[in-house]
């Protein structure tokens, strides 16, 4: 089975202090509760 997430998050032009960034790579094994991005 597959889960697809679609979500809005900040994308800042200029100051990138609160721009959303993924913390994963394609092919990574991930578990419930682990960070996908911040």
């Amino acid at each position, binding site marked *: 089975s597959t889960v697809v997430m679609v979500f809005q998050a900040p*994308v800042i032009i200029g100051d990138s202090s609160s721009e959303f960034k993924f913390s994963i790579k394609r092919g990574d094994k991930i578990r419930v509760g682990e960070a996908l991005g911040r």
Partner: protein
Amino acid sequence: LQTATQARASFNGGSGSSRGDSFLVPGATVATLLMLGVLHARRMYDDKKVEEARERGIESEFQPDFKASVLRLLPLRSISRCWGYLTSVEMPVWLRPYVYRAWARAFHSKLEEAALPLNKYANLREFFVRALKEGCRPIDPDPQCLVSPVDGTILRFGELKGPGVMIEQVKGFSYSVASLLGASSFLPMVAEGDMDEDGDEAENTPMDKRKKSWWRISLSSPKVRDSVSSRPVKGLFYCVIYLKPGDYHHIHSPVDWKIFIRRHFSGNLYPVNERATRTIRNLYIENERVVLEGLWQEGFMAIAAIGAINIGSIELPIEPEFRSNLPRKKLLHPETAEERLYEPGIGMTLRKGDEIAAFNMG
């Protein structure tokens, strides 16, 4: 073979016909087994090549094949329900540990994480949807972070840009977010003042517009522009996670959010493994799926749970009466999405880590 036998028979004076028949059946069986073995070895070789190429970062192109067209002809939903009946058969207590250990070995499941002793799961279906021991999946406490809703493998992720808003299935083929979530899916127009940041309705909009303005589709231009340039612009992101048969199959909340609507598409139940994504067009928008849509602190959030032939059921602890993978005749609208609003206008509040759904067999 037949001619050879007859030739030999005439040469040996006719006594060969009975010897020829007795040779024929084992010969044909061996030949068939050999052929199947060769085909299977060839398939494993192909898959290994793809795996190696993927590790080198070479993405395989989309290649529809004969197998995919044959799959379309099969009654996959009925096969999936039969599989469900089979895995619901209660097993004798003494047999259970052996079966579940064999399953765990075949699909690399971690038995030590199961919440109950193995002989407490009456059948394979119960074992498959087992819960985990307390504390097995700690939730990242960082309030700025969005966590994985499931165990699995990251297939694709990124930011959705440009007018098409397409998610790549594999190189050479993509599908649209609007098709995945449903044509009636919406995206909050936060910048237009219809709704302020935390989703409360703006006071100054007339009643009828307020109802409609909660949500408005803007998947054609996902970046929501904001009038005051210093405030954050909202982008639209996506992440696709594949769950192997041996993975833990419950779905949890990735953030604190409110779910407003559940949408159910009956669809097909093709396999969703690596090979299927490369050969079945529109796989994720063809298959049966449940979409949960709502709002989190940064705006829109949707989670689509997509079934597969061996895992045809999607269960919702937040809506226990919901059933998926029903026979077509029992479906209200086989061709369109069936929707349900959760506490209209209020939504259902969930904390990061709360369980929202689960996949099951059959």
